[in-house]
């Protein structure tokens, strides 16, 4: 079950990185106003990175085995 969660999380993180790259590429390549472009790009990259790092930290802080055990115990009752 834990392996399934890891695979699923891998897909989610891959999608997130993919969309982040897409957004960054668009902001860098197609922006008309260079000043606004810098502000948007910095804001996006900083927040997206913070969210990504915190998400990774939170994912690895969860004891998945214990969690599934707990959930299966709860559903048994």
């Amino acid at each position: 079950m834990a392996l399934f969660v890891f695979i699923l999380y891998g897909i989610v993180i891959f999608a997130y990185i993919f969309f982040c790259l897409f957004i960054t590429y668009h902001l860098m390549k197609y922006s008309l106003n260079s000043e606004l472009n810098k502000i948007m790009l910095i804001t996006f990259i900083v927040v997206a990175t913070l969210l990504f790092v915190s998400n990774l930290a939170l994912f690895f802080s969860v004891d998945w085995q214990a969690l599934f055990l707990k959930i299966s115990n709860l559903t048994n009752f």
Partner: protein
Amino acid sequence: MENFNRYHFAGQKEGEKILLVAHRHWFDILTQFLFVLVLIIMLVGSYAFLPVMFPFLGEAIGNAFFAFLENTFLLFIWIIFFIIWIDYYFDVWIITNQRIVNISQKALFSREVSELELENIQDITTEVSGILRTFFNFGDLYIQTASEKERFLFNNVPDPYKIKDLIMNLQEKQERTEEEQFGKMLQKKVHHEKF
């Protein structure tokens, strides 16, 4: 008039000056951002309701899992917010002293760039219909053209009347310049034939 000196677009010609950059009206993006707002309300609401519905989320194991879920949700709200922003911000009409360029962000991986030379403009129509459009002064502007693409559409742009005036003035200016050039050419020819 707003200064567009800091603006530059791919394919801009030398000496070509940007006179107006028009995006869709802010009301258009507001309706899309309502979806993001609903997601944020769901996120905030889940802090209050989920631990009540699932008490184990308040325990040590569940707490970390709950924080992870909330963070993942926030991650996607952030991405959705920027995708909506990109769709709005990169959907743009640029009026220069030579032509009109429409850059259209149709979908995530679909982008269309079309342009119209001022001399190809045949007719301009503006349409502001409905209470909200009238109240906030935004609407559509259609340009009938003599080129391959018969109709050029400015969709939900703010103050379409101002844009129409600007385009018509530019067109008149260009026609005058062409006439002057033609007159000068004729004068030269007549002068040349006389002597």
